[in-house]
């Protein structure tokens, strides 16, 4: 039997009283795919803003991927792709939309349970979401093992995965990401960044903001074209490489317990460097480096004038430390 509705629009009573958005019936499409047992179902839905613009998207999808792409429009377009072993399985998969009066649209996915359903493992149930949203909406998204991708947004976001990879590209505004074991990639982010993982790599490319904080336990951190006043990169076991720019009065701390540290900077104004590691190489640009009694190697580049110099601290307790100035 054909199902009449695939997406459940759970509009709260409060939202109904002061509706910021309207959600018409979704457009449905079933696409035959071969081979092997299972079913796929696709649906499209557009949510028009009501009296208030959509300011934030809160997405929670533990069942698959999420991709959010910003565009110059005011409505939200959601494309869902559900996958289950059979019709009954598809019936159990739910996507809920709750537009709140404060301009937040909450999108959550789940699977219905109960004695009336036969046992289906999570590996055979899946919901993927592709969302086009107004650029100025902030994104709060959480997935589990699926990928989380945010592109072309202007108000930053807070992104969370368990083991799924996080990818952020061309985003302005503060971005914070957390993952247990999902690789994190941030490219062209113009705003403060806070990226935290336990056992995966963090890849940073073209980052410009006030603060950049990234940390990982068993993963590498690699930064290219980084420019931030306050940079703090920390790992326990992974190597850290950073290629960026020092800023006036800036503070850069790159520290690892066991990983090697390799930092290359374009200098703006004076820079004070202190480094400590099993082996320290501050390069030919710092010929007057002095080794202190406590093991720190210190040096200074440029003349300290009226403005305070940028401060660079590099350390690795069990790894090597390398520093160079990019001319």
């Amino acid at each position, binding site marked *: 039997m054909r199902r009449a509705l695939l997406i459940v629009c759970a509009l709260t009573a409060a939202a109904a009283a002061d509706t910021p958005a309207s959600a018409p019936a979704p457009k449905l499409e079933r696409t035959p795919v071969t081979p092997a047992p299972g079913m796929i179902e696709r649906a499209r839905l557009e949510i028009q803003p009501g009296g208030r613009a959509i300011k934030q998207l809160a997405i929670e999808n533990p069942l698959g991927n999420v991709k959010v792409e910003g565009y110059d429009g005011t409505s939200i377009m959601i494309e869902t792709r559900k996958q289950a072993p059979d019709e009954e399985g598809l019936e159990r998969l739910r996507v809920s939309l709750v537009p709140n009066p404060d301009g937040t649209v909450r999108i959550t996915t789940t699977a219905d349970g109960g004695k009336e359903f036969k*046992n289906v493992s999570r590996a055979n149930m899946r919901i993927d979401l592709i969302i086009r949203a107004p650029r100025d909406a902030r994104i709060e998204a959480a997935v589990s093992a699926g990928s989380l991708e945010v592109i072309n947004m202007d108000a930053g976001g807070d992104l969370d995965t368990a083991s799924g990879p996080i990818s952020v590209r061309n985003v302005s505004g503060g971005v914070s990401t957390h993952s247990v074991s999902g690789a994190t990639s941030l490219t062209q982010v113009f705003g403060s960044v806070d990226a935290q993982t336990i056992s995966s790599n963090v890849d940073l490319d073209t980052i410009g903001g006030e603060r950049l904080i990234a940390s990982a336990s068993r993963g590498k951190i690699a930064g290219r074209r980084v420019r931030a006043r306050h940079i703090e990169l920390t790992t326990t076991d992974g190597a850290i490489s950073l290629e960026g720019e020092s800023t006036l009065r800036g503070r850069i701390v790159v*520290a690892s317990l066991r990983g090697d540290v390799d930092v290359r900077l374009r200098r703006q104004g004076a820079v004070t460097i202190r480094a400590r590691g099993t082996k320290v190489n501050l390069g030919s640009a710092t010929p007057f480096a002095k080794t202190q009694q406590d093991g720190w190697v210190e040096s200074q580049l440029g003349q300290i004038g009226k403005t305070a110099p940028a401060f660079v601290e590099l350390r690795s307790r069990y790894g090597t430390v390398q520093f160079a100035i990019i001319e």
Partner: protein
Amino acid sequence: MSCDDVRPRLTAYLDGDLDAERGSVVRGHLRTCDACRQVATDEAALRDELRLLPAVDPPPSMWAGIQARLGEEEVAHARRPAWRRALARWAPSAPRFAAGGLVAATAIAVLWWRSHRGPEAPAPATPEPAPIAANPPNKVTGPTQVEVGGDVSVDVTVDLAGEAARVTAHYGDEAEELLARAGEARALWTGEQKDAFDAHVVELRGAITAAAEGRPRQRAWRELIRYLRGAAVRDEVALAGGGQ
């Protein structure tokens, strides 16, 4: 199902060990029974507390005994004739080969039957939803794995219900490891720094206990991890700056 039936099963439920039907019954009961829900919440909180206890190292004599037994086993294995060692390697795989052969034979039979059904098979009036391959379990390789859908005997709803606790447990394990590493750096600290560190850890642990289960608690764990990572890696600098 009454409270007396549900309570003995709560531990298995929280561990995700109940089968789908029993899990569903327990979940249904918890939705309606405040008392049992409170017991389940308390047990989950207790587990979090237990995870925070310092690990107990086994005595060296125990490890020596295990190594001695392993050594004896290796010696005995080396003394066996080559044909027995080869047989031992193959024997455990035999049931799998048999099962694989059975599956292959069934598949060939089904394919033969489908290709020889003849033209009288009625064509469907409307295009049927086509089958697709079921996805393999999502699994990330690496030192810390958050496995999703790995156990095919567990229903999706049970798996989803236990996910927050699994992720929180990963954060708990990580915090314990970092705490041990911060302990290595502790030798370099002054008494004042040690006191400041201990006080801050107690404060952050209090925040974890106070946080609601799920993402708020995970967020609180991440704050502790951030502080401990800073303390383990950056010792006196981290302490001076409160971990930041």
